């Protein structure tokens, strides 16, 4: 536990160092992409614990991200003033609704970001509960396909529904006032604050998950990954544990979706695309499957570079190549001590590498 405290502290220090470095060198704008990367990292962390530790693959996590982002965006942009009626007035009475000016000086009556966010995340959680049961009974390719299928369904629905703007997505999403004087917003004046908000969330999430993996539950999850029947024989309710961790990671994705949507001021179908889900999985794989720190660092690095357009028209290609190379030569990821041994093992099968 001490060790973990040090890690977190060290990481927090780095986060601060980056901000100072950026500000002092007059490159504050780097924080924009770093902030976005932070939110994507939340998804990656959630997926890492599900796939890396509990051994349940998911190629549909962008779906949960999208459920969070889209619902929050829809509720905070859909103008209710036209509707009126008892429900609306009722909601207004409960203080759930809020008035705000739009881009063109008009006024909108919409749901306040807080209830919207809560509703969005709860919905994602509910969906995860609902599909998790049957999905997690499946194994191997079947599990991969089922999660992939879920992702595609979300993508299709988003794309085919005019209420959520079909292909255009939802735009003009307002800032999210988390606390008095602290808001998730893309305004360049709030850049530094948002950088800290985002990384604050990541560190919080990291603490939660590190606690989890180092605990009784963490061991149970790892044992499910290692030998499900033995875990069951030790009295671990494997089905329930798998479902719970699935829900946890879905919640991480949904929260990320909500926050990034408010930060970007919009959300589009691309956020729910299969390619996105694959990227998250790729990052977890590159980070070393059961390695939260690795996943976090790789997510930070790759998302940052990708969002700054360093990969140009080769963006997806880069991910593809990295994915293949890592899986071929270092299936346990890069950020590890015995990396070299594994490379040897991979090249000379006689070495017999271990498999996850």
């Amino acid at each position, binding site marked *: 536990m001490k060790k973990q405290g040090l*890690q977190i502290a060290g990481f927090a220090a780095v986060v601060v160092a980056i901000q100072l470095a950026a500000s002092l060198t007059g490159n504050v704008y780097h924080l*924009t992409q770093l902030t976005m990367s932070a939110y994507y990292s939340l998804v990656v962390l959630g997926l890492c614990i599900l796939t890396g530790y509990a051994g349940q693959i998911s190629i549909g996590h962008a779906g949960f991200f999208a459920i969070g982002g889209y619902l929050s965006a829809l509720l905070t942009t859909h103008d209710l003033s036209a509707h009126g009626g008892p429900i609306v007035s009722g909601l207004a009475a409960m203080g759930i609704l809020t008035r705000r000016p739009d881009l063109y000086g008009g006024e909108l009556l919409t749901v306040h970001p807080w209830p919207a966010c809560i509703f969005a995340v709860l919905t994602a959680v509910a969906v995860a509960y609902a599909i998790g049961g049957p999905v997690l009974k499946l194994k191997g390719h079947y599990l991969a396909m089922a999660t992939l299928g879920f992702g595609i369904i979300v993508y299709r629905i988003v794309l085919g529904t005019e209420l959520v703007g079909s292909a255009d997505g939802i*735009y*003009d999403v307002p800032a999210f006032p988390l606390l008095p004087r602290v808001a998730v917003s893309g305004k360049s004046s709030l850049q530094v604050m948002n950088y800290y908000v985002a990384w604050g969330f990541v560190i919080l999430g990291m603490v939660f998950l590190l606690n989890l993996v180092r605990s009784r539950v963490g061991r149970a999850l790892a044992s499910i990954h290692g030998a499900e029947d033995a875990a069951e024989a030790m009295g671990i309710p494997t089905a329930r544990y798998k479902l719970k961790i699935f829900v946890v990671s879905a919640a991480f994705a949904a929260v990320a979706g909500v926050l990034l949507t408010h930060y970007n001021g919009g959300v589009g179908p691309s956020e729910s695309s299969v390619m996105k889900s694959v990227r998250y999985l790729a990052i977890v794989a590159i980070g070393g499957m059961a390695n939260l720190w690795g996943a976090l660092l790789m997510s930070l690095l790759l998302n940052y570079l990708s969002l700054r357009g360093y990969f140009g028209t080769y963006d997806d290609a880069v991910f593809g190549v990295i994915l293949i190379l890592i899986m071929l030569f270092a299936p346990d990821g890069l950020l590890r001590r015995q990396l070299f041994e594994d490379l040897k093992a991979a090249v000379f099968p006689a070495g017999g590498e271990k498999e996850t």
Partner: protein
Amino acid sequence: MRGRNGIIVAIVALALLVGAGVQAAEPIRVGAILAVTGPASFLGGPEARTLEMLVEEVNAKGGINGHKVELFIMDSGASPEKAVSFAKQLIEEKKVLAILGPSTSGETMQIKGIAEEGKTILLSCAAAEVIVNPVAKWVFKTPQKDSDAIQAIFNQMKRMKISKIGVLSGNDGFGSAGKGQIEKLAPENGITIVANEVYDKASTDLTAEVTKLKAANVEAIVNWSIVPAQSIVIKNARQIGFQGPIFQSHGFGNIRYVAAAGAAAEGVIFPAGRLLAAEGLPDSNPQKTVLLKYKKDYEAKYKEDASTFGGHAYDAFMILAKAIEKAGSTDKEKVRDVIETMRGFIGTGGVFNFSAQDHNGLGIDAFELLTVKDGKFALYRK
């Protein structure tokens, strides 16, 4: 652990260095956010190539007012979140004078607010009406209005005494925007939509959809889409023996779609900018020279047919260049004001007349009804 933290520090230091690298004061900086790859690459591809060509040309001539143009093309892959990231990057970091694109309406709407906040000119190459209506101070667009295209079609229908139509549209931004406008304008023109279907851009066969329309005995089909699948529609319609006229959107303005549809494309009627039928225009037409030049240059350089999409980028860049020239400075405010008051600018999309109320500057006269004759675009003679 220390080691790992070390890694991050290294990574970021590196990143900052790379970022800091791009600092050069002299040239005019222009950004472009285009969907060069991904689901809208058929838009972004030609647009990007057109811009590269134009910049080369301008710089070869010594730039604008003696300033060379430095163009940053960012490939958004049609994902809004990237468009957002790039828009901020271009405005805050690259300090660009203007952003050309994005290619899709979705992305444009996502960064509209950012352009406003960053007080940076945005010349969108996307079609949707919402981009310029309501008008936002810094946001302009070069493609013609859907509503005008549709009006042109409806006028033609009235001449042909058609009142019962079936509508098909792609599930992309272009398709859904057009679908909305059609549903809005049809009643005013005394036209009833008896069947209305949306198809996916990855569709492989749409026989079922057109069969449904035929079953509703529509007199004509309007097919509103910008994706390849639209030529599958015409083909399947003809295959199942639909004889009535087929109207397409200006999204059909890409000779490859005609080639793909083959014989089925013959006789399709669609409104489009004059680029596609430039040769057929009377010499009196003011656009003719501009069109022919762009066509010639583009086709010479890239060995592929020029499309109206590239034309939108052409117009966006030329309008900007013209404005900078006239403003005689690279001050965002000044340039923007010049664009807003620009009149009679001859582009590929039509003759632009901007105003404080109209940030598109094109009217219904920007459209010519075209048809396909022997696999080539030709003016439609009513």
